[in-house]
């Protein structure tokens, strides 16, 4: 897959992601119409497909993929469209013929994200009380898996050591918030 697009998703490059979103939107809406998906639902599914692609970019899955960005996006979209039909079918009559619609895209499955546990929900409450730069620091370190050196280089910190001390300061603050909470 196009490396620059994978990097743009990982780094949240607004300019490129915006451009990709606009570039494939009309065709995706046409594609989902062939599966009798309304315009509103198409927008939701298109955005969920982008989010799933970004997760695959961050986890490194996209590095092993040979198809183009668009093929992968539409493959995920197709999977989400089928899921939507299945979910709707549980409430009304399910039309199996909908899955027979011809398309050039293989369906690509997406992992279902588990809901947060009670402990994680509580932690999220405190995480949101951190300053923006701390939230970003912890996200870059623990979710996006960047090393201290990468964070320093990409986000303008003076050195790896500055990142390390800022990260430790943020974790300390988070633990303090939990410790001093009235609960």
């Amino acid at each position: 897959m196009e490396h620059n697009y994978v990097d743009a998703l990982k780094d949240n490059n607004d300019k490129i992601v915006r451009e990709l979103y606009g570039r494939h939107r009309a065709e995706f809406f046409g594609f989902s119409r062939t599966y009798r998906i309304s315009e509103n639902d198409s927008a939701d599914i298109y955005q969920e497909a982008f989010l799933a692609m970004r997760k695959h970019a961050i986890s490194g899955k996209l590095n092993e993929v040979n198809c183009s960005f668009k093929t992968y996006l539409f493959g995920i979209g197709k999977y989400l469209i089928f899921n939507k039909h299945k979910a709707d079918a549980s409430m009304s009559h399910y039309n199996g013929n909908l899955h027979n619609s011809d398309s050039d895209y293989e369906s690509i499955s997406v992992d279902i994200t588990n809901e947060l546990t009670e402990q994680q929900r509580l932690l999220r409450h405190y995480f949101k009380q951190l300053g923006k730069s701390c939230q970003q620091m912890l996200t870059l370190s623990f979710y996006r898996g960047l090393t201290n050196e990468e964070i320093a280089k990409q986000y303008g910190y003076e050195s790896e050591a500055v990142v390390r001390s800022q990260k430790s300061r943020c974790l300390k603050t988070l633990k303090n918030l939990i410790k001093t909470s009235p609960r």
Partner: protein
Amino acid sequence: MTINETLIEKKFSNDLTEAELLEFKKLYETDDAFKQEVDFLKNVQRVSETEDDALFRNQLATYETEISPKKVFLNSKWIKPFSAIAAIFIITISISLFMNKDINNDSLFSSYFEPSKNVSAPIVRSEKDEHLTNRAFIAYSEADYQQATSLFQKAFEQTGNSELLLYEGNALLAMDKVTEAIEVFKTHLTYSDALTNRTHWYLALAYVKSDQLDKAKQELTIYIDSEEKFKKTEAKSLLKKLK
């Protein structure tokens, strides 16, 4: 026993060698403190993923709103001449400011710094009131910064009210304890409360005082871009002088 932080860091950036992975697994099974820290960080990972996803969803929703309803296009024939005029204007301003760059940082600091007013907790002057926060603000209002610093520190430890860090930093700055003030302001910036944005302003002043002008400019820019209105004009004028 201290926790092996490097091993944990490498684990979260998928950077462990086979030998390190074995060590990691062994520690996770045998060392309670290590396991506790890793489990905590796994929860941080999951929570930050959720928050990051929410931000990305908002970003996509913005694109959708921009595309779907009536889109307003700029009349492009004016863009080029307007950009050219703006560029000339910026260059002229930059040159004139560069010529007047002889700045005395100490006097700049003095002309902009005044300790923050107490906007967090009204003082109760009573012999009975033994609350640390109240005593801290009384000392602060009487410019007894030495006493105020120590009381704010204790009050923060006791209550966890992060706003107090702004005043502690101000008290330190008023006593010219710039390095310590910077540390306290940086800690305050790890929180998000009603006064966090204001700390960018005071941190910028502390950087001016300690001749760290690039950092001062960075803090001022963040401050000016924030929604905070307090001292906004002063921040803009100081940034101009530093450029």
